[in-house]
Every structure is written in C-alpha cells, then in structure tokens.
C-alpha cells in the first residue's frame, strides 16, 4: 500500500523528522494492509446480515444522548489561561494570522 506520508502528516498537523517519516510510512502501511482484511469480513457477510446501512454522510451525525448545554465548571479567565505558555493582556498569544 502506498502512503503519502507527507500529505498525511500535513493534514494531521504533525511535523515529522526524516527518520520518523521512514518508520511511520512502513508502520502505517503495515497497519492499513492488515486492516484491509475488513473486505474479507464483508465477504463472509459478517456485517451485512443485520447491521443497518451506514452511509458516509450520516456516520458522523451523532445519535448518542447529549447533556444540557449549560456550563457546570466554575472557571475564571485566570484558570483558563494558567496553562498557556504565551498569554498577553489576558488573551492567548498566537502568530500573526492577518497580514499587516
């Protein structure tokens, strides 16, 4: 299986060193080749018999119970900012996102 590791790393927002690219290309390819046997499972009709049809469109839609959308943590601004390594004037500091 061919893995475009740089594209995958870019989408995952992870910088990889050259050595890691080599190791992870091999590993991810091994894992994906292995999970390819999923097709055989379908062939054995393991899942087709009773499982409801799940489409790519609805599989990300949550059908799980949700809790009330009301805050329950008593957080202060100071609490929230305390773990950030770059804070300025009570806000998270990030690199420029707009051109001057």
């Amino acid at each position: 299986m061919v893995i475009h590791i740089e594209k995958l790393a870019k989408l995952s927002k992870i910088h990889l060193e050259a050595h890691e690219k080599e190791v992870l290309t091999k590993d991810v390819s091994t894992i994906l080749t292995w999970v390819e046997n999923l097709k055989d499972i379908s062939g054995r009709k393991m899942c087709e018999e009773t499982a409801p049809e799940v489409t790519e469109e609805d599989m990300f839609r949550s059908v799980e119970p949700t809790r009330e959308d009301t805050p329950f943590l008593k957080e202060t601004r100071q609490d929230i900012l305390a773990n950030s390594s770059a804070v300025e004037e009570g806000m998270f500091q990030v690199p420029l996102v707009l051109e001057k």
Partner: protein
Amino acid sequence: MNPKNDLVKLDLWEAREGLRKKHFSSQELTQAYLDRMTNAAGLNAYITPCPQQAIHQAKASDQKLKANQGGSLEGIPLGVKDNFCTQGIRTTAASRLLSNFVPHYESTITQRMKEDGAVFLGKTNLDEFACGGSNIHSAFGPVSNPWDPKRVPGGSSGGSAAALASGQALGALGSDTGGSVRQPAAFCGLVGLRPTYGRCSRFGIMSMACSLDQPGPMGRTVRDVALLFQSMAFHDPKDSQSRQIETPLYESYLGKSIRGMKIGIPHFKEEDFDPAITSMWLEKKNFLQEQGCEVVPVNLPNMQDALTCYYILMPAEVSSNMARYDGIRYGQREEGETLDDLYEKTRGKGFGLEVKRRILTGNYVLFKGYAGGYYAKALKIRHRIREHFKEALNLVDAMLWPTTPGIAPLIHGEEVDPLREYYGDIFTIAASLASVPGISVPSGIVDGLPLGMQLTGRPFQEERLLQLAHVLEQSTTLPPLPLQEDFSGVQPVKLPRPSA
C-alpha cells in the same frame, strides 16, 4: 500494632478493618506506602509521587477515623493513573506535550473517591494518552513488571498495576479502552475490572477513544475491586454517556453461591493458544463445574475480525481527540512562523511514536472517499459483534476465556512491528466493542509469570461478575506478590526516546 513495613502486606479490606479498629493510623499506613515508593522508584510506576499531599490527606482521615466517622475508603492510600485530571496536581497522560499541565478541575471519579476518604499517593505511569498495551510508550520511560523488571507490566494502566503488585499502592485507578485495565492486571497477578460502558463517569479523564473509554478499578483481590468499584459506580450528569441505573451493594454478592449459574465457553482454535494457557482454561472450566455451574459452548464472533474493527475505529477516534493538543491553550508550545507551523512543530515534538502512528492511521481511514470503506464498515462489524454478544449472553450468565494470549513480553524499543503489540489485545477487544463488562482474575503461573482468566457478562450486571470472580479466585494459589521485595537495586529502563 503491626510492624510498620508489614502494613503493605494487608489487602484493602484488611487495611480498612485495621483503620476502623484503630490498630494503626492512616498516617502510618500511608507512610509505609511512601517508603515503598522510595524503595521501588526504579520500577518507574509513578510519574508524579505526591507524598506531601498524601500525608495531609491521611492526617485529615485520621481525625475522622478517631471520631468513628469517614467514608467507605477513609484513609486508604491509592495510586491514580495519570490520565485522570487532578486539580492543582500535574497531569501529563505520560506525554511530553503535557509535561507541565496542571488541571484546574478534578475528574468526577477522583473527586468522589476523595469524598469517600481515599488518600492519593501520586499519579501513575501509562502509555502516552493510554495508547498502548505495554507501557513502553511513555515520555517518562517504560515501567518494569515487579515479577521480572526486564518485562513489561502491560498497559496502558501499567504504572497502576506495577504500583499495586510491588506494595506501592493498596488499590489503583486505571482506564480501559481495549483492555488497558484487564491486561496489565493479568500480567501482574492482580484483579482488574472493566465496567460496562456508561457505568462510571469519564468526566475529567483524558479521552482516547470516546465510544470505548471506561475507568476501572484494580486491586489485589476481588473484594478489594468490589470496594473500589462501589465508590466509582454512579450517575454523573457531566458525562452524557453516564447511565442512570441503580448501583447494587457489590460486597453483598461476594460469597453468594454460584450454583446453577450458566457459563459460556467461546470456541477458539487450539493454535491460538500456548498449551499452558489451554490447560489453565480447562482447569478453571472444571472448577466452575465442580462449584455447580453449568458450562456450555457459545458462539462468539471471530476475534481477529474484532481486532481489525478495533484498529480502525480506535485510531479514528484518537485522531479526533488528539486534535485539541495544539499548544495554544495548554501544553509545551514550540514556536512557529505561522499558526500551522506552530501546531505542526508542537505536535511533532510533543507526541511520541505510537500516538503519531494512531493519529496518521486514524486520519487515513477517515479520508473523504475512504471512510466508507473503512470506518463505516468497521461500525457495521461492531454492530454485529454486539448482536453476537447479546445472543450469547441471553443464554448464559457470563463467559470465560483467557485475558491474554501469553505472558508479559520483555521490554523492547518502540520501533518494532506495531502489529505484534496489537495482537496482545486480541482477547480483551471484543468485550470493549460490545460495551459489556469484563474482569480479569489471576489464574496461574507460566514461566514464573502470572496470567489471568477473563469473565465477561451482561451489561450493568457487574455484581454477577464479581460474585463469580470471587469464587474463581479461590481456585488459584499464586506465589505472593512482591510487596516487600527490595527493589532498591533496580534501575529505570532507558529507551531511546526524547525524555520529558
């Protein structure tokens, strides 16, 4: 009064009795454990020991015990897996990225256990973000198995297991996604319970795979696990998956007859097992029969299919959960020219190899166009596995099979065939996917190392599992746990990995 260092030999139930009868104080008990933590530091079971806080909590417990007050775990020293958020105490998930993270809130489970009087000795080591089954994937170094320090304790709750088995904790908290409580319990000669998904609150536990994660208690005996579990099983409105179901008094089921209970034995191929495991399994089947259980064969899905399904769904969920670690709001930030550059460098340096493997695999199977072939299919298989379990558990009270396919492996580097480690989960994965409870009970010794048998049962009927497990554990006499062994000569194992 017991000699001080003998206190670590008591199990949780015995220690609780001793405290209530004032044979010793929580401070004495806690200090005995802190002394063991110093002696056995080379096993690397703890990431952050909390001796001052522990003594402070023990003093408060002693005041309550003196007045014959206090909760169900009053004065009992426990280890807490370092993926449970603890207010004001560093919580790293064994990741370099979170090596300086101090939560400002407490997980529901640790909050309740504190209210019940538990003393927290410190935060135990794990595979980074609970991703692993060996505890070699920790930015703070691997954990050694107290039975043989050259071997892994299992994972991901490996630090909790090693601490318990070496007299560095009287009970411990773990979390189980695909076997992370049951498998290390088996490798270290302990009892570990994975409760039904939805029985215990996940609030404040760092998510790995949300549809599978479940906290679980670990102890030296089934009774100890029942006592810890009593404190953990309740409805929590902060966790949307937490179920509003009455909690029975678990201890009252221990010692009840199991006569007439039906035990299912799934069919596996002979070659799946080491002959020593096959004979251990047969011995336990016979024992349960002698106790008056009816033993019947049951049909379960192919475990290989369950493993494949798990290694699609789990990385998919991991890749989504790990997206929050961007270095902006918390975590070790690496500077970058642009926002994307900052994210990439932070995550590149912050995550270890196994977490990267899972994120990349997870994102691959979720690619638009591929997800139907992988993720949607895996969801269908999961549904089918659930149906299989439901059918089987309609016929029997519980099922019995080995927890692991073999003994604890030797500690090895991270750059090995990942599939080798994944296969270690083959017998614990299915119960996780089916959202049913499972308990691992020490059941024998092979090559000088402990092994466990697993009982899985009907959803939200953990009391039956505990009842059965309590009988099953009496069929085995293991050599004593190395609770008082001198580990001062053990050096932490160093693996080639950037350490936090």
